[in-house]
């Protein structure tokens, strides 16, 4: 299961498993948000490389207007992946509270 939604304050919330089969849904949703800023990954258990591609694409779009995505509540496992992928250099990543 993968869920993506907007909170009242305009944060994007992702939960569940973002695998290759769910990427279209995620990208379509993010493309529909004019200026996403905070992406809360607290409920995200799993992200595949295709999911990383979605974040990267969105970041490129958003950065064009000078701002960037802030990935918050990132769990340990996804932090590792972000590090391997060099995402810690191109995103603002905030770890989940341990």
């Amino acid at each position: 299961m993968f869920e993506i939604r907007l909170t009242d304050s305009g944060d994007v919330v992702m939960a569940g498993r973002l695998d290759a089969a769910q990427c279209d849904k995620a990208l379509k949703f993010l493309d529909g948000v004019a200026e996403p800023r905070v992406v809360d990954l607290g409920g995200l258990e799993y992200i595949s490389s295709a999911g990383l591609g979605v974040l990267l694409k969105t970041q490129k779009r958003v950065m064009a207007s000078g701002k960037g995505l802030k990935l918050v509540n990132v769990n340990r496992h996804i932090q590792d992946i972000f590090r391997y992928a060099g995402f810690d250099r191109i995103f603002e990543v905030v770890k989940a509270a341990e």
Partner: protein
Amino acid sequence: MDATTKTTELRAEALLQILGVTRKLAAPFDLATVLAEIGEAARSVLHAERATIWLYEPEGQRLVLTGTTDVPPPQATLEQGILGATARLREVINVPDCRVDARFDPAVDLDQDNDVRCMLSVPFVEQNTLVGVLQVVDRVDGPFTAEDERIAETLATQCVVFIQRERMTRSLMHADKLDREIKLAREIQMSTLPATMPRVPGYDLAGQFCPADATGGDTFDLVALDDHRLFVLLGDASGHGIGPALSSTQLTAMLRVSLRLGAELSAIFTQVNNQLVEDLPEEHFVTAFLGVLDTDGHEVRYHAAGQGPLLHFHGATGECEWLDPTTFPMGFMKYPAVEPPRALTLAPGDILGLISDGVFEAQDSAGKMFGPAGVADVVRLYRHLGMTELLARILDAVRDFAGTEPQADDITIVLIGRQGEGVADTPVRRYFRRSYDSLEGIFQFVEDFLAGRSIDAALREPVCFIVEELFTNMVKYNPEATRDIALSMGQSNATLTVRLTDFDVAPFDVTRAPQVDVTKPLEERAIGGLGLHLVRQMADTIRYEYADGRSTITFTKTLG
């Protein structure tokens, strides 16, 4: 009305009626109804008083009257009357006056009231085979004409088509019923096979039964008798069809009951053999391997009744030793008692292979057999992959060898591998459709495997990540491929081994995909290519192999 007009009228009328009959032939009427219809059409279109149809029965070389309520229906030989002559000569016989024709026989030639005048007798012939005879008698306005002969022949042709179709349908329905019965027998046979391999510490077990098209008589069984003894059976009942399937099913059932009663191997062998002698039809027998593996001394005691050669692979030397059967097939003859069982010892890394003759006797297009040598080649090459994988490789090799030759016989293989140092236990393998929709099932498979072996759940997401990446790559970059992708997982000591196999594809070595510089700024970062880079980071080892159109990627994770 001149003669020409009359002929035209008759033709039109006849044609209409013949067409009417043809229409009926297309409808799903039963044979009796349609024959009655054709008879009536013939009578009416030829302006005759009576018409009858006789069907030919080749077995009894006789003609049987249709459309009668008499039981049994009247019959005629080919010697009787104008009817018999028509059948014999396979020619239309037009008799203007029956009373002066020597061939006329009132008993068969429609002479109900002893007043038959003229007769038209037409054979039904299909590809030189006699099917029946149509007889029409007593035309209202004098003898039958040449025109009438043609009309009758046309009707007869229609009739033949229908009769043949009806007979074919009936034989197909019969075959279909037989098919269903064979399927049922097959299901029963399959249901007696072990659903899962028993877990035997220190051993890696695999067994598989690949039926040929029709039901054959192979079977196998693996039953843990207690915490250190495993019963092993491989049976092959002679012949094909439902009989052998039931024989092998019966064998399995008898053995299980005997084992449950705690009987000793040789006693079981003798009694089941003697029972089979009584039960099996003459000329039928079952070749069988019955053995008990005792993991305390790593000894297998066995009877190989006509079953062989048995494979004993020696892990230490890499040598394949082939063992002969110990006695005659079961069900062949009764024994008061059997010789004591033979024994062999499995050293670390050894494999006992029970292989039905469907493997050895598989033939290539030139008629060459796969033989023990074919098996030995595969075993030496792939024995390190674990028994499930090895078994799959043997089956692949047999299929490759046979090429387009159909599988003539059931194929059954049971492999019992004693683990050497660091040899993997039984890996679990499953096939997944080439679709992203398979990912959910893949994740579940990974999760079940890890949970089933109490492996740290923290490994789950990294393993899923790697598997997903490799799987989606196979799906994306081999769009022409159609076969399911195999995913197998195994664990040994402190290593988790995961393998994905993609069939009928071009080589693509994931380990050689270009490196990604993850330190580059965003604008220089590509969206793709990241996955394989991450896979190489996350896996402890990763290996790519390509052979026979098959891409195999194996990666390991060290367990903490």
